[in-house]
């Protein structure tokens, strides 16, 4: 969690220093969700998420350098500067992104689970999404397919209470619990408080076992909170939420501090160790920023690579026909 916290802090600084433009969706405040859930996964389990993907990427094992360099749009980035912060990928680490279209990843996660089942691999796919994403039709199509085909996919709704400037109550109609919509598809669902890692892990574990042993899907809603605006470009970050609300969460519900305190209380961690971890994390993040800064940009020729695998890896008689239509 320290690593994510420091990484985000550093990337925000870099954004404000003009090292990148566009969007930057900080995960600060939600760290416990990715950490508590992904840390449970085994060698056959896969992860996919939306654009607020920095935390998941790091927990899946991507290193800060490739991520930060990607934010900077550098050739050393995980996607060679072609994807950006919303699109971090590490298939070798079973991490499938990083997707910018709201809920667009939900059927992809289903497909990963489909492939696992098809190949007889006893794994599952954790597919993350926001509370605003539940109102995209494709998520419902995915729920029906997941239940009908009995696929090992776990949809984790990171409910941070807002979709951009819209509160949950203004975006979704539901009875008591958002995740309850899963009932309509005969899918088991549960809720967890994101600041309690033990609870999140226990409930995720139950879902993972259901996936592994029964090849059944689960919808798990985890309550959390984001500290910054929707993206760094969110001008109204403090308009649709009162400063008091934000401060309240930071003071009484910060998952990082609560977890640290708990581990210390339980004698599993000392203040000094925590200090050291934090220190390391900050150093790692700052080094990553330097790495990104010093890395080269892609070249104009790179614009045309990674579009078609046939063009990048021509077969015997090479690619046939014209693939790109700029007359230059």
């Amino acid at each position, binding site marked *: 969690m320290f690593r994510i916290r420091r990484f985000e802090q550093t990337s925000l600084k870099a954004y404000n220093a003009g090292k990148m433009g*566009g969007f930057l969706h900080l995960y600060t405040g939600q760290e416990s969700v990715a950490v508590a859930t992904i840390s449970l996964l085994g060698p056959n389990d896969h992860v996919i998420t939306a654009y607020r993907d920095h935390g998941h990427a790091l927990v899946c094992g991507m290193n800060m350098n490739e991520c930060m360099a990607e934010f900077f749009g550098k050739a050393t980035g995980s996607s060679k*500067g072609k994807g*950006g912060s919303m699109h971090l990928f590490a298939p070798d680490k079973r991490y499938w992104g990083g997707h*910018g*279209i709201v809920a667009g990843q939900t059927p992809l996660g289903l497909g990963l689970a489909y492939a696992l089942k098809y190949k007889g691999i006893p794994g599952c796919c954790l597919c993350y999404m926001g509370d*605003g994403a539940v109102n995209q039709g494709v998520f419902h199509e995915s729920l029906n397919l997941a239940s009908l085909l009995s696929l090992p996919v776990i949809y984790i709704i990171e409910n941070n209470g807002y979709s*951009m400037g819209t509160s949950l109550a*203004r975006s979704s109609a539901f009875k008591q619990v958002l995740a309850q919509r899963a009932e309509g598809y005969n899918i088991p669902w549960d809720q967890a408080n994101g600041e309690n890692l033990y609870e999140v892990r226990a409930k995720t574990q139950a879902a993972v076992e259901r996936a592994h042993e029964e090849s059944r899907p689960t919808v798990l809603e985890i309550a959390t909170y984001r500290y910054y605006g929707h993206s760094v470009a969110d001008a109204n970050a403090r308009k649709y939420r009162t400063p008091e609300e934000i401060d309240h969460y930071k003071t009484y519900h910060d998952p990082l501090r609560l977890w640290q305190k708990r581990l210390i209380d339980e004698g599993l961690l000392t203040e000094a160790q925590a200090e050291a971890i934090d220190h390391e994390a900050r150093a790692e993040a700052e080094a990553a920023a330097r790495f990104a800064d010093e890395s080269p940009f892609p070249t104009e020729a790179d*614009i045309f690579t990674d579009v078609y695998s046939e063009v990048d890896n021509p077969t015997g008689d090479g690619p046939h026909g014209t693939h790109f239509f700029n007359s230059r």
Partner: protein
Amino acid sequence: MPLITYRKALNDALAEEILRDENVVVMGEEVAEYNGAYKVTEGLWSRFGSKRLVDLPISEAGFIGMAVGASMLGLRPVVELMFWSFSYVAFDQIVNNAGCVRYMSGGQIACPIVIRGPANGGTNVGATHSHTPENFLANVPGLKVVCPATAYDAKGLLKAAIRDNDPVMFMENTLLYGEQWEVPEEEYLIPLGVADVKREGADISLIAHGRAVITCLKAAEILQSEHGINAEVLDLRSIRPLDEEAILASVRKTHRAVLVEENKPFCGVDAQIASLIQEKAFDDLDAPIQRLSALDAPAIYSLPLEKLQLPTPDRVVQKALSIC
């Protein structure tokens, strides 16, 4: 005339039409309380309230379909898409319901809806957020497509689009929202289907739409000052209906054309313009029509590269010189 931004011009157009016609309702994600993701609707909610400015959840297919249905009963919904890129989750509702309902009902049903929002790359947001679907939508008989390049055009065209009885796809550009142009205080409308000569010239026609028009105007200055070439810049403004006469008139005068767009090249808008010119002004052409579109790959995230991916004044100049 006062200088106002492209954003303010749109905002004024919306306010004026909301005041003029009680059936005009503006809806979309974050358009009301948040004042619009790009602030195009700033201040309208506090001024007109929640009946005329409606915040909606992230359900583009659902609410565009809802707006189409409401328009069938006489409302004039102006639906904001945060990005036109998101129209792809609502593509069926736009093409089949907005685009076909009048025809399939034998003219019994009208669909006076406007769908508006930014459709452009160049903002460092990656491939999925940088689509420019004007060529897709203009392919659909039943839909109209407008791409204003200046604040003046944005205001006049949006007001006309809202009063139009057919579904109008109105495509803006986030890179222009902050730019200023002269806009008269008195009310005016710009009819759809009328192109605009943004710069008179005799030697070559630079034909463009949207932000590419601005790129062409810069290129024209360079052509004039550095190469003594007097380029005409024709702004299509409206893609469908299309002002064919203006295009042909310009080419018949200059005998040379460079078509510039931020659209992708394959079956882009300029493919149609090129096909039109060569067919109807074949003998007037002294050189092949040149096209300059976005470099033909998904929009790259890396900003310096993305800037190269879109047409630049320099590359317009090179294209022009290649046939002058």
